[in-house]
C-alpha cells in the first residue's frame, strides 16, 4: 500500500464550443499536456481512468490510448453524472493506494455542444392515445410541468430556496452575487468559456430560466477535457528534483453517494452527501476549513454555490448569506471560491469538470496560475456533485520539498 498520492502533472483544454474538434482531439490534448507537464510519457503509466458521461459506452479510454500509445495497461471508463471526472481521479487514487499501480492517468472529456437544458422530460404536446400507467410512479402521461420540475436549473433553484426558507437573509440578491463573482473571476482565466464581466443588475435582469436562477446564473454546456498524472510517494522519490518540487500532494480523496433522507424522492438532497464528503476529507487530510487558501466548488447554478459554502464548512453554520455579502469568496476576499470562473463562467463540459477543478487548484499551489494566481496558496479543495447523487472532494497541498 502506498504512503501517499501526488499530482505529478495536470493540464486542461480551453472550455469552449470546439465545433472543429472531436472528443478524442480534446482528450488527447489534455492527456498529452498532463504527461508533458509531469515530465513522463504514456510508457510510464500503470493505469488509465477515463471519464466521459455522454460517450459512456464508447470506450473512450481505449480510444484515447489508440491515439497516444496502446501500452496494454488497465483502462477504466467511468461515468458518474457531473462527478464523472472526479471519479476518474478517484479511481487512479485507489489504484495507487492499493499498491497495484504507482502511476496513473486520470482524464475527463466531454463534447456537448449546444445541448441546452438538462433534466426534465419532454411534455407531450398531446396526451397519449390511451392512458396507461407506466414506470415506478404509475404515471399515465409526462409529469414535467404538472408535478413541478426535474430540470437541473429548477432542481437547484429549489435547493437554494429551501436554504432561503431556513435563512431569511438569503434570497435572489445573494444568488446573483455568486454569479457576479464568478463572471468577474473568469476574465482572468484564458481557458474559460466566457470571459466577460457582468454587473449585478445585468445578472438579475438576464432572462429568467428557473427563479431564482437567471441565464447568467446557470452554467453553459460546452466541450473540453482535463487530465492529471497521479504518482505514488515512493515512485515520486525516484523522480527529479524539479518533478518533486512541482508535485502537489493529494491529501484527501473522498467519494460519497446520497444517504437516505426523508423527501429525497421529491427533491434531491445535495447537502448531506456533500457534508459527509467534506467531513471525511478534512479528517483524511488533517486540515480544517480555516486552513484552505482557495476552493473550487460545483457552482452548476448560482443557487448551488451558496449552499456549498455551508456544506463545506467555509462559513459559520447557516452563514452562507453573510459569507457572500461580506465578499469573502471573491478572489481578494478571505477565502477565494471559484477563482477559475467556476462552472458558471469557465464552463461545464460534464466529464471534464471534476479533473479541471483539480488542475486549477494545483496550478495555484504550484504558483503557476498566472494573472489569476492566489498569492502563496498552500492548501486547496476541489468539490463536485453529480445528481443521482455522487459527491467527490479532493484536498490538495503544496509540496514541502
Amino acid at each position, binding site marked *: 500500500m502506498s504512503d501517499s498520492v501526488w499530482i505529478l502533472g495536470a493540464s486542461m483544454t480551453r472550455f469552449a464550443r470546439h465545433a472543429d474538434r472531436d472528443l478524442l482531439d480534446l482528450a488527447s490534448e489534455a492527456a498529452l499536456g498532463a504527461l508533458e507537464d509531469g515530465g513522463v510519457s504514456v510508457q510510464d503509466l500503470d493505469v488509465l481512468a477515463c471519464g466521459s458521461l455522454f460517450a459512456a459506452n464508447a470506450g473512450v479510454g481505449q480510444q484515447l490510448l489508440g491515439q497516444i500509445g496502446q501500452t496494454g495497461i488497465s483502462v477504466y471508463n467511468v461515468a458518474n453524472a457531473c462527478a464523472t471526472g472526479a471519479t476518474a481521479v478517484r479511481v487512479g487514487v485507489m489504484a495507487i493506494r492499493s499498491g497495484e499501480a504507482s502511476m496513473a492517468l486520470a482524464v475527463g472529456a466531454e463534447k456537448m455542444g449546444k445541448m441546452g*437544458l438538462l433534466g*426534465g*422530460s*419532454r*411534455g*407531450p*404536446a398531446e*396526451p*397519449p*392515445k*390511451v*392512458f396507461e*400507467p407506466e414506470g*415506478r*410512479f*404509475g*404515471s*399515465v*402521461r*409526462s*409529469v*414535467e*410541468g*404538472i*408535478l*413541478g*420540475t426535474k*430540470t437541473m*436549473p*429548477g*432542481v437547484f*433553484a*429549489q*435547493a437554494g*430556496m*429551501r436554504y*432561503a*426558507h431556513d435563512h431569511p437573509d438569503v434570497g*435572489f440578491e445573494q444568488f446573483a452575487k455568486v454569479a457576479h463573482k464568478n463572471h468577474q473571476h473568469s476574465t482572468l482565466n484564458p481557458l474559460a468559456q466566457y470571459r466577460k464581466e457582468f454587473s449585478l443588475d445585468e445578472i438579475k435582469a438576464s*432572462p*429568467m*430560466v*428557473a*427563479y*431564482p*436562477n437567471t441565464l447568467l446564473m446557470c452554467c453553459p454546456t460546452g466541450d473540453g477535457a482535463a487530465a492529471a498524472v497521479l504518482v505514488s510517494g515512493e515512485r515520486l522519490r525516484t523522480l527529479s528534483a524539479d518533478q518533486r518540487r512541482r508535485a502537489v500532494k493529494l491529501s484527501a480523496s473522498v467519494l460519497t453517494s446520497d444517504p*437516505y433522507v*426523508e*423527501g*429525497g*424522492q*421529491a*427533491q434531491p438532497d445535495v447537502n448531506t452527501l456533500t457534508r459527509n464528503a467534506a467531513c471525511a476529507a478534512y479528517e483524511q487530510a488533517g486540515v480544517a476549513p480555516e486552513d484552505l487558501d482557495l476552493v473550487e466548488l460545483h457552482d452548476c447554478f448560482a443557487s448551488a454555490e451558496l449552499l456549498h459554502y455551508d456544506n463545506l464548512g467555509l462559513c459559520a453554520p447557516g452563514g452562507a448569506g453573510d459569507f457572500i455579502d461580506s465578499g469573502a469568496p471573491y478572489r481578494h476576499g478571505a477565502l477565494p471560491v471559484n477563482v477559475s470562473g467556476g462552472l458558471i463562467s469557465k464552463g461545464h463540459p460534464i466529464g471534464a469538470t471534476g479533473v479541471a477543478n483539480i488542475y486549477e487548484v494545483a496550478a495555484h499551489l504550484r504558483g503557476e496560475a498566472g494573472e489569476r494566481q492566489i498569492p502563496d496558496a498552500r492548501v486547496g479543495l476541489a468539490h463536485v456533485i453529480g445528481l443521482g447523487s455522487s459527491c467527490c472532494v479532493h484536498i490538495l497541498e503544496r509540496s514541502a520539498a
Partner: protein
Amino acid sequence: MATEQTLTARVPLVAYLALEPEPHLMAQQCRACGARFFDRRNGCGSCGRPSFEPVPVAGTGHLRAFSIVHRAAPGVAVPFVSAIVETVDGATVRANLLDVPPEPAAIRLGMAVRLVTYPAGTDSEGTECVAFGFAPAEN
C-alpha cells in the same frame, strides 16, 4: 340530484394519487422503519427491509421551496411554479403551485397550502386524467 354527470371514466395522473372518497396521496410505508415512498418498491431505501403497507398522506402542509420555471422542454407550458411541499404529517411532495401568479412577490416560503385536483386531458377512449397540485390554503 342523484344522477350526476360522472359517467366519465377517470384515472389518476400517478398511481400514488387516490381519487376516492376524496382525492389524497398514498405512500408506501416501510413496516420496519416507517420511511415513506411514492413509487413501486423493491425494498426500503432507508433500512433495506422489503415489507411495506399503503398509508394515506395529509393533504395540507406548507411551502418548503419553489422555483418559477420559465425554460422547459418542448411541450411543457411555461411559466409554472414548481413547489416542494412538506405535509403536516411530515411527507415531502413535489407538484405545481396553483392559483398564484408566477411571480416571486406572490409566493411566500412557508405559506400554507392544500392539495387540489383538476382534469389534465382526455384520452381517445374518453378517459379523463386527474392531476394534482397545491393551492394556497386559508390561514
